[in-house]
C-alpha cells in the first residue's frame, strides 16, 4: 500500500521543485552529509555520559592517574598492561563504558592484583603514562581503599575458622604463594586451608606479606626499597555493634586497594571490598 502511495506522490512533489536537478541533487547530498555528521558525532558524544557520570565505576590498574578523567584522556587503549600481567588481573572495558571503551580495569573479586610481578610490569608497559611511571613499588600504589563492607558476614568477627579451598574448587583466581613457588602464581583452589580463626584476607594481603618478608630480613628482590613503610590490614580485637569484643580485620593506612582481600574473602558477598572512591591519601 505505502509503496503505491509513495509512487503516486513522488511525481507531483518532484515536479513542484523542478528547478535545477543538479542543484537539487547537491542539496540532498549536503543534507545527507549533515545528517551523517550529526549521527556519528552524536553517537560518539553519547559515550561521554557513562564516563562522566561514572555509571560504571572501575578499579584501575596500579599507577593509574588518580583523576579518572585524566586517566581516560591519557590511556591510548592498547592493552599492553593486559599482556604483561602474570595473574591476568587486567581486563579491557567494552562499549557500555562509553569513553572508557578499551581502557583497562580490574575486577578484584574475580582476580585481584597480587603484585606477583614485583616490578609493576603494567606501569612499565604503559606507553602514555596513564599508569604513572612515578609509581615504583607496590606500597606506592593507590587503586582504592579496602573496607569491611559487611561486618555481619565476616567469619573472624563471628569467631569462626575456615577449612577447605578458598572460594571453592571452581574458583579460578590466581595468587603467588612465595613459599610454594616464588615465580609462578597458582590457582588459590590448589591450596587447602585449616584455620582456627579465619584470617584469609590478612594472609593474602600483598603489603602484609612484604612487611613479613622484610621483618624476616628477606625483602622482595633483595631490595630494601620494596619494604612497605606502613601496615595495610591486621586482625585486632575490636568492639562490635552490640558492645561485644570480637576479632576483626582492620584496614590500616598502608592499604593500596589491590583487592587481594576481596578476592579471597570466603563469604558471599565478600565481607571486605575495595572502595574505589577512596585511597590511602584521601582517608
Amino acid at each position, binding site marked *: 500500500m505505502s509503496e503505491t502511495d509513495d509512487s503516486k506522490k513522488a511525481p507531483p512533489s518532484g515536479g513542484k521543485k523542478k528547478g535545477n536537478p543538479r542543484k537539487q541533487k547537491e542539496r540532498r547530498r549536503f543534507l545527507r552529509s549533515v545528517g551523517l555528521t550529526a549521527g556519528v558525532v552524536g553517537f560518539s558524544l553519547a559515550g561521554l555520559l557513562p564516563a562522566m557520570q561514572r555509571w560504571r565505576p572501575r578499579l584501575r590498574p596500579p599507577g593509574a592517574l588518580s583523576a579518572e578523567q585524566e586517566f581516560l*584522556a591519557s590511556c591510548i587503549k592498547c592493552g599492553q598492561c593486559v599482556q604483561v600481567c602474570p595473574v591476568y588481573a587486567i581486563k579491557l572495558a567494552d562499549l557500555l563504558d562509553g569513553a572508557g571503551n578499551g581502557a583497562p580495569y580490574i575486577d578484584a573479586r574475580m582476580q585481584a592484583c597480587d603484585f606477583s610481578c614485583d616490578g609493576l610490569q603494567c606501569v612499565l608497559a604503559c*606507553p602514555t603514562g596513564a599508569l604513572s611511571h612515578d609509581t615504583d613499588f607496590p606500597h606506592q600504589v593507590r587503586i582504592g581503599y579496602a573496607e569491611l563492607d559487611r561486618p555481619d558476614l565476616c567469619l573472624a568477627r563471628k569467631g569462626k575458622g575456615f577449612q577447605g579451598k578458598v572460594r571453592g574448587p571452581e574458583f579460578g583466581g590466581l595468587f603467588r604463594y612465595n613459599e610454594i613457588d616464588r615465580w609462578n602464581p597458582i590457582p588459590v583452589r590448589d591450596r587447602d586451608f585449616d584455620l582456627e580463626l579465619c584470617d584469609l584476607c590478612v594472609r593474602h594481603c600483598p603489603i602484609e606479606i612484604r612487611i613479613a618478608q622484610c621483618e624476616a630480613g628477606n625483602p622482595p628482590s633483595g631490595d630494601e626499597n620494596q619494604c612497605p613503610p606502613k601496615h595495610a590490614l591486621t586482625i585486632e580485637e575490636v568492639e562490635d555493634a552490640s558492645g561485644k569484643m570480637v576479632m576483626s580485620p582492620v584496614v590500616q593506612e598502608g592499604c593500596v586497594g589491590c583487592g587481594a582481600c576481596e578476592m579471597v574473602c570466603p563469604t558471599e558477598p565478600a565481607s571486605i571490598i575495595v572502595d574505589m572512591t577512596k585511597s590511602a591519601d584521601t582517608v
Partner: protein
Amino acid sequence: MKLFIEHLMQMLGRAPTRPSKEEISDAAQKIHFYKKKEKLDIEEAKEMHRLHKSNKWRNRRWATLLAVNLLFVVSYWLDIQMLEGALTASRFLGFHMADLNSSLQVMLAFKQVLINLLIGVVTVLILWILLGGRTFCSWVCPYHLVAEWADMIHNKLVEKKIVKEHDFHRGVRAVFWLIFALLAAVTGYTVFETISPTGILSRALIYGPGLAVAWVGAVLLFEIFYSRRAWCRYVCPIGLTYGFVGLFSPLRVVYDLNDCRHEGECRKVCEVPHVLEPVIKGRATDVTVPIGADCTRCGLCIDACPTSSLRFEFKGLNKFL
C-alpha cells in the same frame, strides 16, 4: 607545489580541478590529440578485462594485513612478545610504535606528552612517510578488510537494483577530523577512540570481542545497504591523518598515459576514485602523473588495468624496481 596543493585540497574534499590547456605538457597534448579520434569498443574492452583478470596486489595486501594483525594475536596468545599491544599503540621487538591519530587524540585530551609516546609517534611517522601514508588503511587496518567484503556485497546489491547508492560530500571527512580533534581538546576525553572501528576490531582480535563489535557491524550494514565504503571515504579521521603523511611520501601509484584506453575500470574499483581523475580522457597533465595522497596504495586499480598504465613507484628508486 601546485600538484601538492591540488592533492591536499582534493583530500580535504574539493572536486579535482580540470586542467587548462596551458597546464598540460606538450608531449601529453600530442597523445591526447591522437587519442581523440580513437573510439573505445565496449565489447573489446570487456574482452580485454576478461583476459587480464588479476588479483596480484590484492592477494599480497590481504596476506600482509592478515599477517600484521595475526602477529599481534599470536604475540599475546603464544607469549612470543614480537608485537605487543594493539594497533593504537604497541611495541615491535621492544620498539615503541604509536598510531598517529590515536596519539593525537591522547595528546589533545591529556595535554601532556610522554617521551615513550613521542618515540612511538616519530617511529610510525617515519615508517608511513616511507611506505605511503594511507598505505596503513589498505595494508594494515582490519576494518578495511571487512569493509572490502561489505563492498563486494554492496556492489552486487546495487547491480541487482536491490539497494540504491547514496554518496556524501567528501569534505565531511575533514569536518569530522576537526570536530574529533576539537572534542578531544575541549572535553578531555579521547572521543573518537570510543567509536573507532580500527581500534575496536584490533582489540577484539587480540583480547576477544565485546559489544563494541556490534557497532562495527552496524557501520558495515550502513555501507552494504546505504552508501559504499562510507566510513573510510567520508568519516575516518585516521585515514585523513595518514593522508597528510602520504603527501610527503615517495611511495605512490603513477599513471602512464601512453597505452591507457580510458575505459575507466580502475575508477570503478577504487575506494577514492577522485584521485584517479587524471585517467579520464584528456585530463592527464603529463605523460606520467603521480596519483594523489588520498590514494590508499591498495593496488586494486593496478590489478584492474589491462594495459599496465598504472604502477607503484618509489620516487627516485625507479631504476631499481
